[in-house]
Structure formats: C-alpha cells, structure tokens
C-alpha cells in the first residue's frame, strides 16, 4: 500500500516540485506516472525511495511513514522496494550473476542462498546464458533485464521503475514492459514513471498524470493524453 496525502515538495529556491498531491495505490496494482519533464514524476519516485523528504503532507509505503522514518531505519525500508533506472546503473566490472548477487550480498544473504536463487531469477529474466557476461557485452534490453533482476533480488513488494525504457528502442521497450507486467501478475506492485506514449497506451493500466507538480488525472485503464 502506498499513500500520498496532500504531499508538497518545496526545494530551497521556493519552487514547488509537488503541490498537494494525493493518491492511494493498493498492493498488486500496476500504475503509470506520466507527464512532461519537470512535471514531478521523478520527485514522486525520489520521495518513495526516501531520497527526499516531503516538506508537507504525508507519504506512507509498505507500512512505513516516510516523513518520520529515522535515518537508521531507511535501509530496512529500502529492502522492501526494488528500483530500476533509465541508465541501468550496473556495476561495469561485475558479471550479470555478480551484479544480481551483489543486491543479496548487501543485505547479508548466505552464499548458499545466492548460489541457488540468483540463477533462477536470471533465468526468469531470460538471462540464463548470460550469467558470466559483463554489462558492456550485453544489449540495452539485456542490461535493463539484469537491472530488473537485481531490483527483484530481495523480493520487494513494490517495484519502482524510473523511465525504464528511456534508453531503449521500441521493440526492446515492449519486451521490458512485458517483463514488468509479468512481475506485476505475480503480486508485486509496479510503478512506472514514463513519457513513452505508445507503451502507456498499449498497456491499458492505471495512469496518474502530473503537470506542474499537481495530479491532473488519475484514471483506471487510462492512456497517455495530449493534454500533457
């Protein structure tokens, strides 16, 4: 469960990145955040990752009240969410296996767990034959699938994807969205921030549209409208 209640985010210069934003996302939903650059999509994501703290309202996710969450408990919260970025952010000197295993190592998983679970996860992402490849040997789609595998490594209940198809061609983009859809069907809440019109229109999922820091539309089975 994710709940934004009257959330305002003001940066020091006085510019409001978010202005009284409210919405609720139930467990297992698939939601697109759409809007032009600077509309506030990234701010929503950064608030959810607890990279930023809202200046007003309340943000709640997975039972954590993020405005009041003390620094030392942030890692605990972050282990319940998975994040995928536009630029993949893989470690260039680690193989596919090591990149995914890394996420489990960080939270203290045993070697046995890593050896048994990481290949299964990679197989699921269609990377079964690329376990020993380095990121520079992979296509964009494969790199992003590795990043998704890493985000899922610790079984998060929410998967957040910030422009996951931003660096990919249309075919690969569709392939990634298929994977995200599959993950969603297995019960994970999936949030995707994007301005990829085709993808939003083809998937027919809930759409929350932002413009100048405000929610201008929140629609079940919506599309990407030209008002943005």
């Amino acid at each position, binding site marked *: 469960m994710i709940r934004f209640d009257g959330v305002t985010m003001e940066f020091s210069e006085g510019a409001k990145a978010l202005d009284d934003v409210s919405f609720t996302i139930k467990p297992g939903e698939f939601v697109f955040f759409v809007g032009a650059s600077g509309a506030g999509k990234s701010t929503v994501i950064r608030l959810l990752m607890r990279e930023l703290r809202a200046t007003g309202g309340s943000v709640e996710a997975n039972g954590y009240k993020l405005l009041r969450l003390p620094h030392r408990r942030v*890692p605990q919260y972050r282990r319940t969410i998975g994040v995928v970025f536009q630029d993949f*952010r893989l470690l260039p000197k680690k193989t596919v296996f090591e990149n995914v295993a*890394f996420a489990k190592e*960080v939270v*203290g998983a045993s*070697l046995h767990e890593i050896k048994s679970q990481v290949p299964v996860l990679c197989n699921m992402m269609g990377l079964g034959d690329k376990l020993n490849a380095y990121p520079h040997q992979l296509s964009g789609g494969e790199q992003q699938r590795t990043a998704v595998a890493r985000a899922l490594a610790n079984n998060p209940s929410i998967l957040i994807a910030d422009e996951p198809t931003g660096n990919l061609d249309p075919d690969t983009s569709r392939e990634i969205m298929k994977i995200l859809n599959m993950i969603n069907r297995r019960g994970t809440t999936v949030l995707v921030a994007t301005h990829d019109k085709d993808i939003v229109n083809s998937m027919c999922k809930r759409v929350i549209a932002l413009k100048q820091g405000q929610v201008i539309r929140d629609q079940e089975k919506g599309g990407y409208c030209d008002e943005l």
Partner: protein
Amino acid sequence: MSFKQYVRPFSEGLRNVFRNGVMSLASVISMVCMLLMLGMVFAVVLNTNAFAQRFESELDVRAFLKDDLSAEEGAAFSQAVSEWDGVAEVTYISKQDALHSWEEELGDDGSLLEGYEEGNNPLPASLSLRVQTPAYVPNIVAMLTDTDAVDTVTYSQDVVNWVQRISEWVRNGGVILIAILLIVTSIIISNTVRISVYARKGEINIMKYIGATNSYVRSPFVAEGFYLGLLGALVSYGAGIGAYAYLVSRFDVVSGSARMLRLFQLVPLDEFAVFTAILFPVVGCGLGMLSSFLSTRRHLKV
C-alpha cells in the same frame, strides 16, 4: 550473517589500499613522520623524566666542614643537624672516609692518590644530608651556611629544576608539534579514503538504493584507514626502535665509568620498545580509522 560478511570489509579495504597506490603511500609516509615525531618526543620525555627522577632520588645537600673542626666537633654538629626540620638522614663523612671513597671511585686509577694520608689529606670532612622533600632544601641550605662549622654547601636542586624545566619545554613543544602532525596526517588519510569513496561512488549509490546499512557501506573504508595506520605504525616502529637502539649503544660507552655519568644513561631499549609497541599501533590505527570514518560520513548520504 555469513562468514563472508565479516571478512568483506577487510578484504575490500585491503584492495582499496592497493588501488590508490600513490595516495596510500603518501598517507603511510605522513603517518610514519607523525609517529616517529611522536616516538622522538616520547623518548625525550621518558628520558628526561627518568633523569630527573634519578637526580631527585640522589637529592642530597653536602655541607663541607671547616678544616679546623675536630672529628668530635664534627660528629656533634652532625647530631645537631639531624634534628632540624626536614632532614631525613645525616651522614658524617670524615676526611679519611672522603679519601677512601674517592679512591674507590677512581677504581684502577686509585693509585694516583697514594701518598695522601691522614696528615696531608686535602679533602675536607663533610655532612651528607638526605632531605625529606625538595621543598626543605633552600631553608636547610640557609641554616647550614649560617653556622660557623660549615665552609661551603652544594646541592643538586638547581640541576633538578633545570632538568625539569627542559623536560617541560620538550613536552609542551612536542605536544604542539604532534597535534599539527596529527591534523596533517588525518587530512591526508581522509583524502586518500575520499578518493576510494569517489572511485566507488556508483557502487555505493546502488548499495544504498538496495538497502545497505551505513555501516555496511562504510566498513571497507574504515578498514582501509586501519591498514594505512597499521602500515605506518609498523614502519615507524621498526625505524624508531632501530634509531633508539643505536642511541643506547652510543651512550653505553660512558656508562661503565663514574657515577655522575651514569645519571645520563638512557632508559633501556626494551622499556622504550614496549611503550611504542602499544603507542604506535593504537595511535596509527585509531587515527586511520577515525579519519576514514569522518571523511565517509559526509560522502555517504544518498
């Protein structure tokens, strides 16, 4: 937590040390300079203290009696002085005793004094006073000088004061110098570790997003500081002990001879070695870890 989790900070820290070769070297060199300086100041303080202590334990007032005083008069005077305030013990040293003890001190060269005997003994009789505390010395000296029986009075208080003043100067100057070196060293180590942090910024960022705790992210860098400190401590320990051993051997040449020169003997090597074996690693590793900890604190916020 698996075994690997405990080993990780140490193995990654070690890798960082080698990855920033030049900066690590600079850190270790400055650490060595700092610790050697610390060791030097420490050696000087240790030795001046030991010297002052040795001197103080020998703190005696010597009153040379006038030559026309008879042995009986001398003994009676000695008895009187022993009852003064602050006098712990008085020994009467007759002219004959003085001659004997000089002979003994000269050892093999004692034959030089042959021919001197009771009749022509040039040495005066004297009283050797042990004083309860140094504070009594000025008063007792004044009283002795005032009596008719005494010719001259000598005492080591001046020298003790002088030694103590020098030792204090050395200590204070050393503390200031060490403080400066401590700051310089910690800045250099901080920078070395900061370069490590920058080199692995992407990795750290991802770790934070995945939910790594601060201590998980920080521990390899603190371990890196620990290694730099330990390396510095080992090198300075070797160099410091070597230098001190050399000094001790140089000063030992004179220690066989007269009592006065024995006062200047250095504190033995093993005493210095034990102290620095604790001091160097504690200061080196402590400083290394602390400066890493502080330099990562600012850079790890995501």
